[in-house]
């Protein structure tokens, strides 16, 4: 497989590992944040009941939210590290599109979401679309 410069110097498995780190951290962050927001409840209702301060307090007092944000921060720094070794034209489309698929899998396993045929089709179509658009 040909990898564009400077990834050619990095090696295939190292490049795969870097992209996998971005994808896994990002997926963990998204899933934890989604779980946090589900445990908090509908923010529109909370805001109507206790105002904007109440909604912000509800989010900031949820430990899962901070776990999610920590993983999202880790994903950001993994992305910066990957960009230091690999080309943007490889890292951005690969991580963005793969994250959609891993999120669909993680959503089904960990959040018990009903990922039916319609959502799988949407995830795959958007995944290929994002790759083509960003490549």
């Amino acid at each position, binding site marked *: 497989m040909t990898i564009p410069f400077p990834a050619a110097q990095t090696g295939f498995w190292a490049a795969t590992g870097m992209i996998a780190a971005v994808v896994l951290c990002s997926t963990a962050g998204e899933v934890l944040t989604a779980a946090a927001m589900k445990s908090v409840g509908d*923010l*529109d209702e909370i805001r109507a009941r206790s105002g904007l301060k109440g909604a912000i307090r509800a989010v900031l007092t949820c430990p899962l939210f901070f776990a999610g944000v920590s993983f999202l921060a880790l994903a950001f720094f993994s992305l910066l590290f990957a960009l230091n070794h690999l080309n943007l034209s490889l890292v951005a489309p690969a991580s963005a599109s793969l994250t959609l698929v891993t999120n669909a899998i993680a959503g089904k396993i960990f*959040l*018990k979401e009903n990922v039916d045929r*319609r*959502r799988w089709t949407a*995830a795959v179509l*958007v995944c290929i*679309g994002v790759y*083509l658009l960003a490549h």
Partner: protein
Amino acid sequence: MILLLVAVCAPLGDSCLSRGMTRLPVISLAHPATLIAAVFTPFVALGIVLLIGFFASYLTALSWADLTYVLPATAFGNVIVALLAHFWLHEPISLERWAGIVLITLGVGFVAQGPSLTERPAAQAPALAEATEAAVEIKQEQAL
């Protein structure tokens, strides 16, 4: 509306940050104060406001919709950026990118037609209990 805000705010915020940072002279790590000063330049400040708006809308969307619904639906932001770049900035769009735009639009169309939230047994239970109570009340009224 919230999903549209998520889709629009993220790419616009990134674009504002990019435009703001590229207009500034090269920032060295030896002078970190210049990085803080950059936050107060108009485009970077606007970018930060838009990204805060994105995160707030994203969290709101996740509070009432599934992650597997929100992520594909908000990917439409990529299409908005590509179309803005083409019609506003007159950037050329290759055949591959047009194919990407069509696929994302199709994907968003697919997911948007379905339900936004997975029905949970816990959510069904109170409704079932209410229905049972209502049925009991009707029977009691009929008995009286």
